[in-house]
């Protein structure tokens, strides 16, 4: 049997080194490709769709490189993991940068945390939401294997995902408002946090992804 392959989609936005290294770390036998090449992405066993920075730039580059169709094609057939702005790009629309149409793979809106965010005690909350926050596992999923409920993951974002179909929510976070920390449908999973920067819990999630056959 040939080596299992995972493609990390490279559309020129940010540092993919960490994601690639974390995947190599959890799956020493796998081949990790960081690539913008549609053929390589579509022939890989698994696909990671990362993203950092502003959504207009991210979606702009995805469209310019024709990677929107590639992501959608991968979503039909193999385990696909969206991370951070990668996850946000999968939604219908984002409020960021004055409003940006996204890939519409999941019906939902990406919203700003706001300038007047407060916690339950009325204390002002900083934006971006930066640091380690808990994720409540809303339903069982293969990617939650060996990760205790309410584990903390590393987040850094000013915009958060909401979905129309609440049954897609696999993990919930709370920062002044409840938000979608992870979502999943069939062979697609997406996380607002950075598993590659979330120490043991994040590495376990990536390990689970590398072992996942895409079924629930």
């Amino acid at each position, binding site marked *: 049997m040939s080596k299992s392959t995972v493609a990390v989609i490279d559309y020129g936005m*940010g*540092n993919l*080194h*960490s994601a690639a*290294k*974390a995947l*190599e*770390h959890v799956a020493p036998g796998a081949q990790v490709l960081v690539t913008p090449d549609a053929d390589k992405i579509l022939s890989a066993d698994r696909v990671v769709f990362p993203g*950092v*920075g*502003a959504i207009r730039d991210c979606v702009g580059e995805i469209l310019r490189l024709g990677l929107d169709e590639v992501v959608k094609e991968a979503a039909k057939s193999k385990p696909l993991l969206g991370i951070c702005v990668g996850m946000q790009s999968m939604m219908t629309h984002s409020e960021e940068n004055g409003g940006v149409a996204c890939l519409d793979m999941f019906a939902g809106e990406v919203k700003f945390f706001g*300038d007047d965010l407060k*916690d339950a005690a009325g204390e*002002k*909350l*900083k*934006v*971006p*939401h*930066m*640091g*380690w*926050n*808990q994720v409540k596992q809303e339903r069982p999923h293969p990617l939650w294997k060996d990760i*205790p409920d*309410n*584990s*903390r993951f*590393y*987040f*850094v*974002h000013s915009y958060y995902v909401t979905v129309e179909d609440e049954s897609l929510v696999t993990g919930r976070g*709370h*920062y002044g408002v409840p938000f979608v920390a992870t979502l999943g449908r069939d062979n697609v999973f997406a996380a607002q946090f*950075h598993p*590659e*920067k*979330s*120490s*043991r*819990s*994040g*590495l376990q999630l990536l390990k689970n992804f590398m072992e996942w056959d895409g079924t629930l």
Partner: protein
Amino acid sequence: MGLAKRIIPCLDVDNGRVVKGVQFVDIRDAGDPVEVARRYDEQGADEITFLDITASHEGRDTMVHTVEKMASQVFIPLTVGGGIRKLEDIRTMLNAGADKVSINTAAVFNPEFVGEAAARFGSQCIVVAIDAKKVSAEGEPNRWEIFTHGGRKPTGLDAIEWARKMVDLGAGEILLTSMDRDGTKNGFDLDVTRAISEAVHVPVIASGGVGNLQHLADGVTLGKADAVLAASIFHFGEYSIQQAKEFMAKQGIEMRMD
């Protein structure tokens, strides 16, 4: 339940080696930043900050390799500071595996650099380091000024106004060091920490002066810091990160314990 306060150990790195000494590492090579960072990750550090104090070009190249090596073995956020002056410096560090860069002196001499950096790479990876020193006399209202050159050169810039300006330009986080307290082990300057934390909407990291665990807790509860940075109390094995977290959690501070 909510966002945890962060503990960030800081390593001074010269030519790819940790300097000022790190004594807790139970291995032959205590000067290897990757080993030191791994140990801190195991103890539960929430982030690592590297301060590159190398002066030479060769040293810079070594630093890039160090960041690469570290990013392939330690999976928590990594900030690199020291000598970040051009967009190219930022790109190099991010490509090597840093998650954030910390800009200090270059921001004072060219504030627009912070704006350009945030526009190019996103605010989430731009930390502005502020070295503040109290300039008001006893009995006067508190006033702090920005100093450069390790606290020796005043700039005339008001620290609170400066922090606001940096955030307006796109800084995603402020690393605030009290030059009065740095190295004293007398605790953070809680007044300036609180004043700046309340003045800006982005997270503030308190730095300078930590001598015991109560100082870390005070930085969060009284100083309103979102994260606390320390070096020597962890390097010399006086306290582990785990001990610090347990201590802070007992005082009701939300910490990542898993």
